[in-house]
């Protein structure tokens, strides 16, 4: 058995040239073939690629989709984010638990099924949704959950259910998915007609420096949310010392409530790949990597096929479009369930086969990025915008949108609205205008920018969505009358606690402390002092954390405290006896009671 295991692992490692930088692919393949990456497997991988066993363990233990224990043949990962719970994820969970006779977090005794929860899988417009191995099922009902369970019990898969395919390329034979695009409003940018090669032709007619000048003139800023000027990033990367440079595409769309990249990857991958190729030309890179979140595995065959077609058409590979010496190719790197890998230096770590820990800056990726080489990391949508800028010209782009935020932007709208889905609108659109479009005039709150964004109250609905006012990488979640915003904040804090990489103290510990204090308040055990405590703690996390995750993770609490303070105030009351109501003596002595095997004689509360 062990000999066989070692042979399989040797073969997998050889497939990736025994290169430890391809660790993500290696451990993913090992897990796919063996159901998990056991200690024995880790030892074999370590021997094959020449790293310490504990280094392999370090990687495997980091990613939610990887496990040292063997999982069931079928792993059901039910999305339990706030939106999915609003639309019945809890009932679906109960059904699965009843059908399989196990709880979430467990595997059936026969090794058939594991049930797990997962944060946002990019399907908030069709909730509740789940991953069944690599396959996505959406709009789950309890009936559907029962049918799925029955099929798995009978056949070991859900093929016989013949779930209807979604629209557009979701029905493409290489995608074959029930996911829907829900593309509600197309602007004249990302989803407009595009002839492959049109942008590249214009780009190579200019020098790389002119190309970058054009991107700068377009005033394009990063579409992932942080909003760094793309042209400047490229200029730094081009100007950095080094013959080898890289273009990385951030397709780790993990911000809760964001799913616009999913629709780009499904309907406009050519545009994205073309933008990456333009970047390759502009900064002088020969290789590009698309870092695709593990949840979007179902799109890889399709995307690889698009890449091959581009190679066949002379749009990738050597001497692209006949331009002597312009060589560029792209590979897809799969992630494995880690929100932090959307942070650009963590993304680089993961591409290098490491834990998804962010890196210390400086040096910045433009100087020292992927494999230590100058690297530009840009968002899926940013590359698409670049391609359109090359096709239509910088002024065409620059005149769209608002003063500080040029161009159109894709919004992923979900929650309590009539028409959830993707909207391509100019920057500067107000929350109110957006709510009218999506059919949600009665919203009591709108979450702009995802879990790390801002919970906006109705008196701020006149604010513009743009980098300078309400910034977002695309996520807009709408909450109607009756929704509990403290529970919303709590679900986001649970998310950050789960997704913190744990590298730095404030994010690792602070988020847990903040979440707990919020729980006391929700339970009615909070005092007015706790609100001040949460503000102080939140600001400490914000100002001392090492990367963008920690610097924004307290936002769910800080922005609801700011915009919905009365909700908190109605929950807290001063302590009557000067003691902390959140302290439970019963709980505090619980473990001791368990150890000595008898109840304490203290006065029970």
């Amino acid at each position, binding site marked *: 058995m062990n000999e066989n295991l070692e042979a399989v692992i040797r073969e997998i490692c050889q497939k990736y040239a025994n290169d430890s930088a391809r660790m993500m692919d290696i451990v993913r393949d090992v897990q796919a073939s063996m159901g998990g990456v056991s200690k024995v497997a880790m030892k074999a991988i370590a021997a094959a690629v020449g790293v*310490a066993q504990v280094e392999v363990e370090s990687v495997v233990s980091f990613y939610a989709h990887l496990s040292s224990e063997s999982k069931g043949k079928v792993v059901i990962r039910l999305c339990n984010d706030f939106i999915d719970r609003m639309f019945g994820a809890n009932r679906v969970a109960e059904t699965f638990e009843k059908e399989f006779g196990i709880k979430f977090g467990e595997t059936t005794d026969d090794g058939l099924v594991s049930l797990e929860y997962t944060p946002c899988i990019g399907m908030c417009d069709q909730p509740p949704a789940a991953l069944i191995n690599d396959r996505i099922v959406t709009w789950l009902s309890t009936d559907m959950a029962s049918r799925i369970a029955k099929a798995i019990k009978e056949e070991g898969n859900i093929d016989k259910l013949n779930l209807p395919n979604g629209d557009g390329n979701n029905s493409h034979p290489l995608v074959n998915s029930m996911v829907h695009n829900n593309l509600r409003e197309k602007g004249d940018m990302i989803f407009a007609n595009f002839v492959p090669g049109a942008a590249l032709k214009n780009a190579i007619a200019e020098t790389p420096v002119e190309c970058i000048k054009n991107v700068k003139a377009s005033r394009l800023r990063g579409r992932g949310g942080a909003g760094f000027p793309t042209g400047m990033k490229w200029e730094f990367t081009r100007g950095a010392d080094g013959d080898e440079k890289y273009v990385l595409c951030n397709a780790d769309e993990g911000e809760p409530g964001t799913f616009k990249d999913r629709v780009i990857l499904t309907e406009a991958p050519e545009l994205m790949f073309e933008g990456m190729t333009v970047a390759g030309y502009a900064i002088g890179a020969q290789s590009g990597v698309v870092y695709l979140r593990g949840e979007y595995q179902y799109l890889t065959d399709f995307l690889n096929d698009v890449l091959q077609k581009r190679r066949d058409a002379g749009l990738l590979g050597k001497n692209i479009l006949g331009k002597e010496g312009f060589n560029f190719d792209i590979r897809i790197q799969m992630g494995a369930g880690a929100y932090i890998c959307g942070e650009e230096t963590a993304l680089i770590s993961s591409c290098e086969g490491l834990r998804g820990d962010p890196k210390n800056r400086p040096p910045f990726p433009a100087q020292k990025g992927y494999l230590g080489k100058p690297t530009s990391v840009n968002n899926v949508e940013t590359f698409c915008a670049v391609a359109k800028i090359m096709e239509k010209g910088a002024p065409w782009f620059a005149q769209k949108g608002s003063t500080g935020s040029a161009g159109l932007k894709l919004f992923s709208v979900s929650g309590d609205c009539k028409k959830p889905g993707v909207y391509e609108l100019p920057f500067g659109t107000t929350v109110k205008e957006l709510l009218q479009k999506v059919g949600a005039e009665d919203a009591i709150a709108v979450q702009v920018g995802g879990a790390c964004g801002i919970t906006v109250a109705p008196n701020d609905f006149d604010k513009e969505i743009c980098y300078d006012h309400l910034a977002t990488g695309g996520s807009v979640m709408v909450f109607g009358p009756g929704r509990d915003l403290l529970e919303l904040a709590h679900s986001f804090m649970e998310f950050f606690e789960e997704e913190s990489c744990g590298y730095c103290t404030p994010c690792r510990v602070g988020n847990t402390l903040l979440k707990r204090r919020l729980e006391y308040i929700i339970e009615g055990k909070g005092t007015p002092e706790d609100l001040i405590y949460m503000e102080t703690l939140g600001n400490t996390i914000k100002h001392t954390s090492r990367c963008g995750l920690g610097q924004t993770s307290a936002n769910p609490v800080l922005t609801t405290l700011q915009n919905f303070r009365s909700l908190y105030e109605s929950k807290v009351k001063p302590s009557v006896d000067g003691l902390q109501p959140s302290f439970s003596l019963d709980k505090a002595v619980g473990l001791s009671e368990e150890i000595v095997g008898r109840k304490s004689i203290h006065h029970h509360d």
Partner: protein
Amino acid sequence: MSDKIKFTIDDVEIEAEAGQTILQAADAAGVYIPRLCANKNLTPHGSCRVCTVKVNGRSQAACTQPVAPGINVESESEEIKAYRKSLVEMLFVEGNHYCMFCEKSGNCELQAVAYRLGIDAPKHEYLFPSRDVDASHPEIFIDRNRCILCGRCVRASKELDGKNVFQFVGRGIHKKVAVNSDAKLSDTELAGVDMAVSSCPVGAILRKRVGFAIPVGQRLYDAKPIGSDIEASRTDK
């Protein structure tokens, strides 16, 4: 002298060499900035965040941020001091620290920094985690209850001992230090004299049979607070 970089920390002018971090330059000038994960023999880690300063108004870790001409570094402001206290308190409540009977007491950097910052009791709630102890090795034991995840052992083993005994596993609040074997420390290459052992700032990695050897009063931080050695070399006095 032209290659010297001049900047200020709390309005005191500091001269630094190009390529130094703020922490290195401050140490050289005799200005103490509290820190836990940083150690002058190891690559900067930037994880504990206790050395957080403001550089031209922006928070940065002094241990990873390079000096630049004319920067204005704020280190002992009320705001920064409050952050540092909060961070050190987080490290206390995250683990299970029992100074009163810990062998490292008096020589412990976490304890010493806490005293220096004036922490009497943490304002955060104790998390009381359940953590492992590994005493399998004949000369050394690990008590993860007292680990602050500074990564010094990870770096020292790699950078100074030329081994790879320790590495982080897990993530978030569940992150911990693992050893390079199937389970036990005794199955690793770790030796009692390794720098990975002596680099531990707290009582998480300890040599056996030497506990409490130094009497109270003669321990490292009994007479003077941590950082006094750095401040002794202060140049602008």
